[in-house]
């Protein structure tokens, strides 16, 4: 307990007095709104006091940084030790063009790479497939073969950078290519650092780039867990993503609940496949959104950390402290950006950056102001990166760990989000776990309901989006948007056809046949995928 009974009694008396006084004055001076809510539509009281956190046990529920339940952060010194990794998601057109952008970002102080792949690559089509028409190089870089991957990382020492790849259904293939490129550079797999997203469940829930059915996908994922625990021990084998769930319209509590439910499904599957929970748990990582409601978002990250720690310790009986701690990457919320008055987005991103940082993120991508319109230009990406640097070096919020802890409001919201998320997890357990809940459409339906309510609130003017449904101006359509050279599709087609013509087809066929056989049996398929990408 944070307060003794005597103190609480006094506060209660005073609080009642205050409530009565305010109530008496409301008739004359009503408040702006009848009801105040968070960005997720949760009620917000006029005032939070020690009464709202009287049942919170500091030692058990809040504790200290780097210690269970990690509410205050996963490292003991947090940003006093080192800042979060400023990781800007980038990639477009060809491997050559993306490689140039990466070198530009590194030169400007970016600390890790974050690779965006185009949709054909994400869904497993070559650039010359008819379904790739119009899509090649559009939302990311096109990778058809190892040759493209070598160009993508040309001149970048893979032993030095940490690389995050937003790749899910074919994550095993892209990871194998990364390992193969590193080997050619003379770097062994055990030195590699980075993350693959590799989270197929959320593709079914929210993002849509799935290939294989859930069961087969989960086998690939557990194969990667096992392979990396031995061969690529510094690699984060999955980034369990709430980001896209939130983008699809969920609330903050749903983001936590559904993401951790996915996490539970992966851990369950890996244990079922015979892995020891402590052998892979420390390499699980998470990926969350950052929206505009600063305090709710901070509470969300704190709640997620605490809840995951409890799940890993109590439900899965993990023994190592590292297995309990939830590390996460954050991206600022794409869906919060407006196409109207795009400069305003810089301010939104700054608030969201503060949320992620005060929430204790391990790495951060900040969106650029023009992303509701097109892929960002180099200039707008620089402003987004500078936003992180200003928060890191100038704002002062990084000097003390978890600086909002102890705020009655933030602690109460942390408790509330944890409880709501736990309710969702319980409901999903009752439905038979995340896979069954997705198959039944439960999770998608919940998210869609939230998204639709949010849209209706905006259209009714209940939720104000500055520049969009209030304070609008007449504006000219923006100029200078990034345009992907439309000839990329053609040149990629030629390149891939060239690779196909010049490779040792017999070796390729043999490698694919071996892989097929491995898939039909119970073996780990990773070594076969690695052999196949090299042919």
């Amino acid at each position, binding site marked *: 307990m944070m307060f003794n009974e005597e103190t609480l009694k006094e506060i209660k008396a005073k609080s009642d007095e205050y409530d009565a006084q305010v109530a008496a004055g409301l008739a004359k001076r009503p408040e702006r709104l009848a009801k105040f809510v968070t960005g997720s539509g949760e009620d917000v009281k006029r005032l939070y006091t020690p009464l709202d956190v009287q049942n919170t046990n500091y030692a058990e529920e809040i504790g200290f940084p780097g210690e269970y339940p990690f509410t205050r952060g996963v490292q003991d010194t947090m940003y006093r030790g080192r800042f979060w990794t400023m990781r800007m998601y980038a990639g477009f057109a060809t491997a050559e063009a993306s490689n140039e952008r990466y070198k530009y970002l590194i030169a400007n102080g970016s600390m890790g790479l974050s690779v965006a792949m185009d949709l054909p690559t994400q869904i497993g089509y070559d650039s010359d497939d008819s379904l790739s028409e119009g899509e090649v190089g559009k939302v990311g870089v096109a990778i058809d073969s190892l040759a493209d991957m070598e160009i993508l990382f040309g001149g970048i020492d893979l032993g030095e950078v940490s690389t995050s790849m937003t790749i899910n259904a074919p994550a095993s293939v892209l990871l194998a290519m990364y390992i193969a490129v590193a080997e050619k550079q003379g770097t062994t797999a055990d030195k590699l650092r980075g993350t693959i997203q590799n989270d197929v469940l959320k593709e079914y829930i929210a993002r849509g780039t799935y290939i294989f059915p859930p069961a087969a996908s989960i086998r690939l994922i557990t194969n990667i867990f096992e392979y990396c625990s031995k061969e690529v021990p510094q690699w984060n084998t999955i980034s369990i993503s709430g980001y896209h769930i939130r983008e699809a319209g969920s609330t903050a509590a749903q983001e936590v609940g559904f993401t951790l439910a996915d996490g539970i499904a992966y851990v369950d599957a890996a244990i079922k496949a015979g892995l020891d929970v402590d052998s892979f748990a420390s390499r699980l990582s998470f990926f969350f959104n950052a929206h505009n409601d600063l305090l709710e978002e901070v509470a969300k990250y704190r709640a997620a950390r605490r809840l995951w720690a409890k799940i890993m310790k109590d439900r899965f009986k993990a023994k190592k402290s590292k297995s309990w701690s939830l590390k996460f990457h954050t991206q600022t919320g794409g869906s919060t950006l407006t*196409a109207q008055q795009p400069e305003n987005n810089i301010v939104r991103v700054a608030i969201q950056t503060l949320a992620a940082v005060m929430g204790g993120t391990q790495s951060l991508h900040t969106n650029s102001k023009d992303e509701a319109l097109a892929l960002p230009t180099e200039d707008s990406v620089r402003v987004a990166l500078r936003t992180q640097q200003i928060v890191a070096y100038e704002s002062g919020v990084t000097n003390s760990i978890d600086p909002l802890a102890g705020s009655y409001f933030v602690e109460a919201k942390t408790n509330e989000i944890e409880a709501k998320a736990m309710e969702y997890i319980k409901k999903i357990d009752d439905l038979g776990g995340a896979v069954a809940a997705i198959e039944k459409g439960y999770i998608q339906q919940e998210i869609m309901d939230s998204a639709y309510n949010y849209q209706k609130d905006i259209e009714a003017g209940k939720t104000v989006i500055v520049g969009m449904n209030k304070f609008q101006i007449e504006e000219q*359509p923006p100029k200078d948007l990034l345009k992907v050279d439309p000839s990329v599709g053609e040149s990629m087609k030629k390149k891939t056809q060239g690779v196909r013509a010049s490779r040792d087809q017999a070796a390729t066929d043999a490698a694919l046949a071996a892989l097929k056989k491995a898939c039909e049996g119970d073996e780990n398929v990773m070594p076969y995928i690695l052999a196949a990408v090299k042919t």
Partner: protein
Amino acid sequence: MSKPIRVLVAKPGLDGHDRGAKVVARALRDAGMEVIYTGLRQTPEQIANAAIQEDVDCVACSILSGAHSTLLPRVKELLKEKGGDDILFIGGGVIPADDIPYLKEKGCAEVFTPGTPTTVTIDFIKANVKK
């Protein structure tokens, strides 16, 4: 019995962002329309065939992948080929203003970009379907 407007809400291309498509589908439903939703990753051929078989009054394509200039004109072309030139054809998504004149020239009656209230889309459909 008044006849409900039938709308095919389609997702051409490979992007999986269907929040917009689904929100619009619900809004149209709540405005009393019958919405046929195609699901993700539809080729122009699939969309045009569905539009004809469903005898819709309007085809609304949502696309966020950047492939709009390739795919939307193709859908319109196929609709025309299959005798559905009279079907109201509209698009929406992350589509740069610079690309909109081209899409209109290619038969998109209107293009709705992020931030458009669903009521605007509903009113546009009601005013422009052939009855």
